[in-house]
Structures are given as C-alpha cells and as structure tokens.
C-alpha cells in the first residue's frame, strides 16, 4: 500500500501543509503563499495520475514506445494560470488593504474595524475611499 501509493501521500501532505497555512496564519500574504502550496499539491497529484512507468513526455517521436498521458498536463497548465491569476489579484488586494488599514495581519485589521469609525458610520472612511478613487481617476483619465 505505502510502496505503491507513497507519491499520493506526499502530495496529500503538501496540500494539508498549504491548507493549514491558509486557515491558521493571520498574515494575508502568508495566506496567499499557503494557497499556492495547497494548489501545487493538487497540481502534482493530477500530473502523477498521467505518469506511466517507462513512459516518456507525450511529444510524439518515432523511437518512443510509451507515453505519459497528455490530458492531466493540459488541465494543470490551465490550473497553474488560474493560480497565478488568483495570486496577482490577492496581492493587489493585500496592498490596498495595507494602504487602508496600515497592516496585513488579519487580527489587527479585525480589531481596527470593530473599534474604528467604519463600524458605526461610513463617512470618515468613505472620504478615504473616495480619496483613493480620485487618485486613480487622475491617473486614469488620461489613459
């Protein structure tokens, strides 16, 4: 069991490590790093489904007898792209959150939100929000 499945166990361990970071760590950037670890575990799992002992990369050539399966590779190419897209959006959000709250620690942000003016009324932070809007507007109007 272990001998034939050691690969899967390793990938599962990887996914779980990533998942733990996503849930338990409070730093938003660390969460994103954890998310990538989680995803990479899944990617490797898929790729290992297509692997065949003695097989070779699925680029057809005359002197090769057996090929590994191309389909999981195609799926994972797509998934990698989705992963990096998510990472980019998450990072951009984290940067904006840092600008708005001055921190990227989830606990501190939550504290700030419950004690800050935002909880009661949107005015003060609304002004802040519009401030950044104006800034982007200035950049954007010329584009």
């Amino acid at each position: 069991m272990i001998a034939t499945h050691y690969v899967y166990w390793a990938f599962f361990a990887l996914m779980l490590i990533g998942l733990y970071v996503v849930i338990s760590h409070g730093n938003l950037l660390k969460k994103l790093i954890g998310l990538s670890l989680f995803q990479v575990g899944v990617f490797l799992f898929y790729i290992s489904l297509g692997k065949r002992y003695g097989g070779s990369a699925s680029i057809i050539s005359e002197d090769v007898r057996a090929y590994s399966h191309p389909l999981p590779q195609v799926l994972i190419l797509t998934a990698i792209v989705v992963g990096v897209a998510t990472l980019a959006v998450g990072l951009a959000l984290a940067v904006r959150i840092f600008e708005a709250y001055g921190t990227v620690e989830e606990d501190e942000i939550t504290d700030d939100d419950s004690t800050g003016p935002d909880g009661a009324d949107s005015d003060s932070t609304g002004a802040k929000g519009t401030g950044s809007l104006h800034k982007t507007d200035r950049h954007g109007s010329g584009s």
Partner: protein
Amino acid sequence: MILLVVMVALLVAMILALLRAFLGPGLYNRILAINNFGTKTVLFIAVVGFLFGRPEFLDIGILYALVNFVATVAVLRLTHYKELLSGSGSKGGE
C-alpha cells in the same frame, strides 16, 4: 551509470543548498542559495533528459537559466526599494 552518479551528486548538492536556504541567516545567504539551486535545476533537467533517453527538452533548461537571473535581479531591486522607502537600512532583511 556515470549519469546516475552525476545525478546523485546533483541531488546531494541540492540538499546542501537547501540547508543553506533554511539556515540563512539573512536575505543574502538565501538569495545565494536559491541562485545556486537554480543552477542545479538547470543541470538536473539536462541530466534527467539524458538519463531517461529523451534529451531534446533542453528548452526548459534555457528558460531556467534566464528566469533565474531575472529573479535574482528582482530580489535585489525590490528589496532595496523597500528599504529606501521605509528608510530603515536593515542588514539583509532579517
């Protein structure tokens, strides 16, 4: 057989570089370890191709040689710009 020996040497060298990356200390030692690991990766890809009889995928090796450089430049540039902005001249990021 010789290729296998080279492969084992590469893996050992990778593990040593990995330990350095874990131990640090500081950013620079880590960058150095990663840069070194990148070289090993290029060689790994080249050797694995020969080992399993399909050496024609060396394009990946070329790409790694390039990307490794871009990453190193990026690390130096972006970590600096942080220090310039915050004004704290920390010693190697730790």
